[in-house]
């Protein structure tokens, strides 16, 4: 008899958890994936849209240790390898009329939940999509980019149309 009561209690707890467990907000967990390289659809997106300035909001996650695509030995951390890229990219940006706006190390998440928090936020303004594509496909950039892929575990890059405070 006790066994059945125990079983019933476990079942009830299970049902209660199903309905109320963990979900204190209205919205559900959403899946996201950081990436190092854009998908073909994302690349095609650079050819579309208006010829207007935009912001690129980068959320970066570094590898613990840098790993270069050409297999070279290195003692750099992921953050250190990416820092080489971040330094060199300034010149590549200015060549196409783009400029870094602000950036910095993430300290914590005040609102929301993320399975694995990003390390750095960096915001860049580009004159248009073509300029970004032009930079990303230039030889000089691709040389610097080796440090980026060596250091970066993955990222989100959000394109934002800068607007007024009214959000409309």
């Amino acid at each position, binding site marked *: 008899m006790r066994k059945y009561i125990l079983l019933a209690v476990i079942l009830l707890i299970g049902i209660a958890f199903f309905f109320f467990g963990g979900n204190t907000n209205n*919205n559900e967990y959403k*899946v996201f994936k950081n990436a190092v390289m854009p998908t073909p659809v994302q690349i095609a997106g650079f050819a579309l849209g208006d010829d207007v300035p935009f912001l690129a909001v980068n959320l970066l996650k570094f590898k613990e240790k840098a790993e270069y695509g050409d297999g070279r030995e290195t003692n750099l951390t992921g953050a250190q390898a990416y820092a080489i890229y971040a330094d060199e990219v300034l010149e590549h940006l200015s060549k196409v009329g783009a400029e870094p706006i602000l950036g910095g*190390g993430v*300290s914590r998440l005040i*609102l929301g939940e993320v399975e694995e928090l*990003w390390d750095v936020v960096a915001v860049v303004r580009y004159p248009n999509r073509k300029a970004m594509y032009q930079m990303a496909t230039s030889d000089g950039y691709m040389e610097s980019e080796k440090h980026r892929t060596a250091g970066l575990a993955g990222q989100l890059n959000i394109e934002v149309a800068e607007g007024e*405070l009214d*959000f409309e």
Partner: protein
Amino acid sequence: MEVKNHLRPNKAQMEEFFEGDTETEITMLNLLKFKEKAEYEDGRKTDLTGREAYSIYGKEVVEHLEKVGGKSVITGKVSRLMLGEVEDLWDSIALARYPSRKAMVEMMMDSDYQESEKHRSAGLEGQLNIEFKEGSL
């Protein structure tokens, strides 16, 4: 990986406001997701969309920020994701700078702010709010 937008900080996140460095400048990146239709917590009738309700908050919060020495730095609409994948892309972003965590708490405790905040919670489905320290790449 998983991500979940929230409307309010949880208990641990509230406690963190008062821990560690509460005195130096911080920048907040808000990734915002709006409700389709605004819903006010006091149950009032409204025809506003979530974005429209949040916009009322967005305009009013500028003054609340200034009162504590903060500043709205960037706002904008998300047009697409250039890299990575997100199941449900955010609608807008907002970047604000505060002189300190203490200043941010001060703003949130202000009764005028709380009045404006009604439009925020009416329009916002949820958000991420990422705190970072500018310059420390």
